[in-house]
Each structure stands twice: as structure tokens, then as C-alpha cells.
């Protein structure tokens, strides 16, 4: 199915007008966070792009990422993007099962060797390959095998990108991310738990039109992960004015004040939630009154507690403080007693000063 119909053909068969294509290109450009001046280039790229084969592998995951990307029912941008690719293997979505499913994957790999796009969600267990297998093949083997012929890999969701929840302490399966295993392929990380659907499609659109987007040091497309939630947050003015919700049901919470003190990780979290938002742009967690968990960041699960402000130490420091008081006092008493003993000795050794022995004998 790959390399055949291109997007304009698809649109024509759906009875979509050129004006609609213009609207689509404009919105897509906005979605990819590109300048409106690039709309013609996006249009041209879409008109000429080949329809790529996509293999989607799901490892230690919860299917939340797939849920997220398939959430919209209306013919939206996401649909169009997905219609422009050939999803040849996705064990949750595909109709085929068992040997037929695996055969589809192998066929797609063979037909498109070196050209297909590999999408991965979920982490890969290293402690014991048996922890997670598909069709008797361990995740590790399947990833290595499938990655070998991929043009590029998109690690969808925090698990695939950074290990995610399976990787959280104490990481019983020895879960790692795609980039921990595959070193010789371009990897685009699209973290989030799950990622925003339009971000996933935006990344795919970018890959289809302009290839690999510009990535940050954590392998994330800068267009969507370039800025922190905090910098783009509509509640930021309250942070700057020093107005904070103290509990989830106080005046500040009702008035929509900053959620920093309720543990918001916005300042250290890079994601487009605050601008792109969720559920077709309806809202995002902070707008719904909940602090950001920081799910697009590595090890977000181990960041010291979701409701602990960033500035609050994550450990049980009170115990440490009490121990320090006791320890400090003990050492202090010992040291002081030593000093006092020295002084007592000095008092004992006091040689009475007489007016006639104030001069040195020598």
C-alpha cells in the first residue's frame, strides 16, 4: 500500500476542496509551530510527499498513547495525517492477528526496507526479556530487528522516549527507552503520558513534509517541546504577582491563581500543553485546576511527589534535621567539655600575679 496515493489524491477522493487544503496547510503550519510564511512550502511538500509505510510497535505500555491518538472521531487534522500514511502494523489497531499480523510486519519491512517509519510506544525490559514478548519475540529482539530497516524512529510517549513509568524506581523490569538501545538511527522522542494527539500528528506531518524536525538535547522536537509549561502558562501572571492557590479548594484555587505551591512542575516541564491544549484545544491540566505533573520529562514519576512544590526537598529531611540536632549537640558538648577542661586546667594552674613579678625574668 505504501508509496502510492498521496495526500491531494486522498483529499480529492474525499471531496475536499483546494480552499480546504489551504486551510489545512495553514492550520498544520501553525500546529508545527512554523511561520505562516512557510504555508506554501508545507502545501508543496504535502502535494509531493510519498505515502510512507509505518510500523508501530507497542512494548511495556498502557495503550494510552494509542488511545490518545485515536481519540478524535471527527475528520480532523489527525485523521488526515493518519490517512496519509500506510499503517502496516499496529497490534492493537490492525484487523489481522496472530501469524498474519506478524507476517504483515515482516512483509512491510521487506517491501520498504530502509524507508519505513518505526513508531514505538512503551519501554523495553532488559532484566529478563521474558517480561514482555509479542508473538514469542522479546521486545528487545523485535525492536532491534525492526529498527534495522527503519528510516527513522518515533518514540511515542514517555515510556518509549525515556523509560517512563516502567522505568520508575525501583524499575523491577529493568525498563529502558528506545534510545538506550538503538544508537544508529534518527530517533524523534515525543514524550508525554500520553502525548497530545496534535503533537503526535504534528511531528508526523513534519516528518512527512520536511523530514526530521529540529530536536532538543533530549531528542524532542523543539517546535513542541521548546518552551516550558510555565513560560506559556496563562496563570503565569499570578506567579509573577506572588498569588498562589494554597489548597485545591481555597479562594486562590477558585480565582485561578498559580498552582506552584500545589506541586506544579510547569517550570521544569517542556511541552506544548499550555498553547496547543487537549481535547481539541478545550483545556489542559492547569486550566482544569490541577498542577502539571511534568510527564514529558525523564523520570517524572520520581520527581519527589506530584503535590510537592519544586522548591521543597523531596526526601524525608525532617528526620535528618532531628538527627543533625542530636549529632551536632553531642559533638558540640564533647568539644565544649574538652575546651572547658582546658580552661579548668588553666584555672588550676593559675600562678598568682604579684606586682613584683610583672617583668620578664630574662
Amino acid at each position, binding site marked *: 500500500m505504501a508509496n502510492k496515493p498521496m495526500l491531494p489524491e486522498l483529499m480529492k477522493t474525499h471531496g475536499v476542496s483546494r480552499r480546504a487544503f489551504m486551510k489545512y496547510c495553514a492550520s498544520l503550519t501553525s500546529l508545527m509551530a512554523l511561520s505562516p510564511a512557510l504555508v506554501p512550502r508545507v502545501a508543496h511538500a504535502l502535494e509531493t510527499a510519498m505515502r510512507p509505510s509505518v510500523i508501530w510497535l507497542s512494548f511495556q505500555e498502557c495503550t494510552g498513547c494509542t488511545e490518545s491518538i485515536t481519540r478524535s472521531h471527527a475528520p480532523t487534522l489527525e485523521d488526515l495525517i493518519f490517512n496519509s500514511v500506510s499503517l502496516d502494523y499496529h497490534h492493537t489497531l490492525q484487523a489481522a492477528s496472530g501469524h498474519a499480523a506478524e507476517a504483515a510486519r515482516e512483509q512491510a519491512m521487506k517491501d520498504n526496507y530502509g524507508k519505513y517509519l518505526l513508531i514505538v510506544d512503551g519501554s523495553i525490559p532488559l532484566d529478563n526479556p521474558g517480561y514482555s514478548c509479542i508473538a514469542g519475540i522479546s521486545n528487545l529482539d523485535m525492536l532491534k530487528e525492526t529498527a534495522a530497516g527503519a528510516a527513522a524512529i518515533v518514540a511515542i510517549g514517555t515510556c518509549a522516549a525515556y523509560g517512563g513509568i516502567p522505568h520508575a524506581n525501583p524499575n523491577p523490569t529493568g525498563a529502558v527507552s528506545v534510545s538506550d538501545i538503538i544508537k544508529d538511527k534518527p530517533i524523534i522522542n515525543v514524550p508525554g503520558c500520553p502525548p497530545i494527539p496534535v503533537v503526535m500528528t504534528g511531528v508526523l506531518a513534519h516528518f512527512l513534509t520536511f523530514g526530521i524536525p529540529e530536536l532538543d538535547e533530549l531528542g524532542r522536537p523543539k517546535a513542541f517541546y521548546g518552551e516550558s509549561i510555565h513560560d506559556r502558562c496563562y496563570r503565569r501572571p499570578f506567579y509573577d504577582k506572588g498569588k498562589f492557590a494554597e489548597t485545591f479548594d481555597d479562594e486562590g484555587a477558585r480565582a485561578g491563581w498559580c498552582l506552584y*505551591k500545589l506541586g506544579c512542575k510547569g517550570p521544569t516541564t517542556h511541552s506544548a500543553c499550555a498553547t496547543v491544549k487537549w481535547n481539541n484545544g478545550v483545556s489542559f491540566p492547569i486550566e482544569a485546576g490541577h498542577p502539571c505533573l511534568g510527564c514529558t520529562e525523564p523520570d517524572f514519576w520520581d520527581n519527589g511527589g506530584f503535590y510537592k512544590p519544586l*522548591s521543597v526537598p*523531596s526526601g524525608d529531611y525532617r528526620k535528618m534535621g532531628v538527627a543533625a540536632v542530636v*549529632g*551536632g549537640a553531642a559533638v558540640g558538648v564533647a568539644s565544649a567539655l574538652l575546651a572547658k577542661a582546658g580552661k579548668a586546667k588553666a584555672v588550676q594552674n593559675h600562678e598568682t600575679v604579684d606586682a613584683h613579678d610583672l617583668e620578664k625574668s630574662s
Partner: protein
Amino acid sequence: MNNPAFDLLMWARGPGFDIALAIFIGGIVLRLTEIIILGRKKDMAPAKGNGFLQGLKTIFSRSVPRKGLIKFAPVTYLGGYIFHLGFFIAFFFFAPHIALIQDAFGISWPAAGRVIIESVTALAVLAVVALTYSRLTDPVRKSLTTFDDYLVLLLSVLPLITGYVAVNKLFGDPTMMLAVHLLSVEALMIAFPFTKLMHAVSFVFARYYNGSIQGRKGAES
């Protein structure tokens, strides 16, 4: 995949803070114990004034400079006040810091806005620059200054600068800068009991003793 900046931040928030706190508190308790246990002899001379009350009063009243002296050491006085006030305001009225205090002690108060926090931070940094300059050039300050003094100035100004950079994202990765900010505070905490930073606690005792000695005699302090 790991984010070294994030890992460093988590270390600074976790074990790093615990270690720093243990040294900070343990060290302060140690030094204060050393002082208090040393004790002082009971004064046999009949008191003319109330040494205890004047001691307590002096803890606060000595914060006001004695009349006419500011003009002889303007940099030390003004720099000192601006630094201390700036550091105090930035520390106690910046919301993330209040959150820490609230977590530790369960008390909190309204936070100051960004304009105030950043202004006082900038002023405090300038004050440290002026104080350092005076240590390098003024003969009295120069003759008194040891390595300890420069270390203390550096350790006091680093949290201000790193905090300002982290909040304003002036350069570097913000997560990394936040981690660096916490680490700079932890350096300050670790050095605190063993350097002249200790004055921030022991001044209470020094002023009390001074006030009580003078107060017993009915003299001013």
C-alpha cells in the same frame, strides 16, 4: 534516557539537600553548644539596670546604626543593609521559598511579586559587589579580610545570581539552573557553621551578652 539536569535537580532536592541540612543544622547546634556550655561567671556586683531585658532589647536595637557613623563607612553600612535586606526579602518572600518553609514548619505568609523579588535580588548582588570592592580597596577592610571573607561573599551572592538566572532563564537550561541554584544554596548551608556566615545565628548571643553586660550597669548598649 536520562536528563542530567533533571537528575541533578532531583539529587539537589533529595540527598544533596539532606546532606546539606544535616551539616547546616548539626554544625550550628555544635557551634552554639560550644559557646553556651563554656558559660560565664555569675556577676556578683549588684545590678543597676535589668541586664536580661536590655540584652533582649539589644538583639533588635543594634540593627539600627549609631548616629553619625554611616558617613565614615558608607559602603559597609549601606552595602551591608541593602545586602541583608535584599537577601532577607528574596529569601523569605519569594513564593517557592515560602513553600519550603511551609513544608518544613507549616507556616506561610503572602509572597511578594516578581518585580519586588527581582529588584531586591539585583540590589543585593550590587551590594555584594560594592562590599567586595571595599574589601579589596579600603585599608581597614583590606587588612581584616581573609580568605573566609571572600568565600562568604561568594557563597552569599551565588544563590542570588543563580536564582535570578533560573527564574528569568537568562542562560543555560532552566532545569539545570534550578539545580545549580539549589546546589549553591546547599554550598552556603554546608559552609555556614564553619565560616563567618555563622554570625547570622551567633549575633543573637553576641548582642544579648553585650546588652546584658551594659544593661546591668544601667549603661546604654
